[in-house]
């Protein structure tokens, strides 16, 4: 069966929350049919790799099948948290969009459920890791 590689944001949306030095990022399927693909491919290991430069001490994934959602909890990725980090975005509010840039492979039969259109700027590998 043929498939396509697309950024995660075409299959799911999400939001970042923060408490202390811990970030949580929801990943919510745009359609229930996409949920198994997300569970299979958006693993703790891949998310940890996507945030490697933030040195997470632990990445946990919680599944919420009724919601077609998963919740990632990343420990120690906020350089101390909202009151201690030097980052402009000390809450890490933007981090959901780093996760949503993860490439995933979607079977052709499910592509009708993807959101948005083909993005000419999307590269199917993480560009900042090529250096």
């Amino acid at each position, binding site marked *: 069966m043929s498939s396509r590689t697309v950024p995660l*944001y075409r299959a799911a*949306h*999400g*939001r970042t*929350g*923060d*408490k*202390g030095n*811990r970030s*949580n990022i*929801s990943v*919510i399927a*745009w359609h229930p049919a996409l949920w198994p693909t997300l569970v299979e491919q958006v693993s703790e290991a891949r998310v940890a790799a996507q945030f490697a*430069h*933030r*040195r997470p001490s632990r990445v*946990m994934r*919680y599944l*919420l099948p*009724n*919601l077609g*959602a998963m*919740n990632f*909890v990343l420990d120690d990725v906020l*350089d*101390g*948290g*909202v*009151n*201690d*980090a*030097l*980052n*402009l*975005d000390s809450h890490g509010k*933007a*981090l959901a*969009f*780093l996760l949503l840039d993860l490439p995933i492979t979607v079977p052709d039969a499910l592509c009708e459920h993807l*959101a*948005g*259109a083909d993005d000419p700027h999307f590269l199917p590998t993480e560009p*900042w*890791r*090529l*250096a």
Partner: protein
Amino acid sequence: MPSATAPLRIGCAAGFSGDRTDAAGPVVDALVAAGGPSFLIFETLAERTLALAQLARRVDPDQGYEPLLDELLRPVLARCLANGIRIVSNFGAANPRGAARRIAALAAELGLAAPRIAVVEGDDIGAPAQRPLLRAALGASADLDGVMKSMVCANAYLGADAIADALIAGADVVVTGRVADPSLSVGPALAHFGWRRDDWDRLARATMAGHLLECGAQVTGGYYADPGYKDVDGLARVGYPIAEIDADGHCTITKPSGTGGRIDAHTVKEQLLYEVHDPAAYLTPDVVADLSDARVVELAPDRVRVEGVRGHPRPATLKVNVFCEQGWLAEGEISYAGPRAEARARLAADILRERLGALAPLRVDLLGVASILGDDGGRYLAMQPPGQARDVRLRVAAVHDDKAVAERLPREVTALYTCGPAGGGGVRTALRRRLSTRSCFVPREGAPARFAMTEPA
């Protein structure tokens, strides 16, 4: 199954200190039009806000409550009191009694009968008598003496019980300091429905209703829009949320008609999981909420019902946030534009690194290249190959305990005007006290909550 009893409506007109102050009008309009029992809440107390309020109170003992209290309440106070819409808010911050006095004065200015105003207290555990409790809770953390000496405030997250008791005693307005955000909604639900305080399933459902309300427009399309993927109309006049809570605690989220924004299954799911860690154990002072089997159901446009939330017994401890004044945060920015702008900005960063060795590690951002997703250690920026960006703003930041050392950063950034790369412009600098935070847990008995009805002015 929906209960036959009329629902309780709770509208939320602020999701943080600094939120829009004109949100309450349409919410109150909708509550009045719906009739029936209703409450209005304002959530204005983020983690850091309370520490800033405490610092304000040190300067002026009458201050220390929400600075925008007047702007939030003045437009709606008369209509709320006239229509039996009771108000619950943590806008008391570091000075609930000061806020209560201001509300009483505001009511008098507006020519209203004196409202019954209750304050909820007990969250502030920073007093000398409670230092041993705090020391024990902070435990083996490094530099305990330094923490205690530089402490600005220590506040426990109280629950809904004292809010409910104040409402049962007849308060028209309940002013709190630090309480768990969802407790602002659980209190009214407890008072209205008369649930037992260990009715965990109902408490958990009301808690999640409160959780969906507590960030204001974040459930009604605010903080959601992403053009082409998640389009939201009318964010300039977004409607703030109203939860309809039934006798079993289940809620339906809606918003005032004619306002902007949107409520659908996706906006509700995003907010349901916001700041949640283990979804099977969302800890609050009132209950441990379990979202494992939660469902969201779209009933109609801008009407979404949440079902399937369960509850477990409340934790034996309360979370405490401790804030300390530790060090000085220095920041500076300068812009480069046109050909080779990125190369010139990178050169400016190298110059600052050499000049500011005493301030290492220096956080370096290149706005227009990489400034947000990176890390304080600079690993992410180092992974970005030098490019040809033509509009780049360099930002540097550092912290130092010694103000005199920290002050060198803004001076060195400013000196780039004459000593740095060509064409640098638009220098802005800032130097401010840094508030650092620690969290710990105290036994529930260590921070007993109580309410007091204030005397009419």
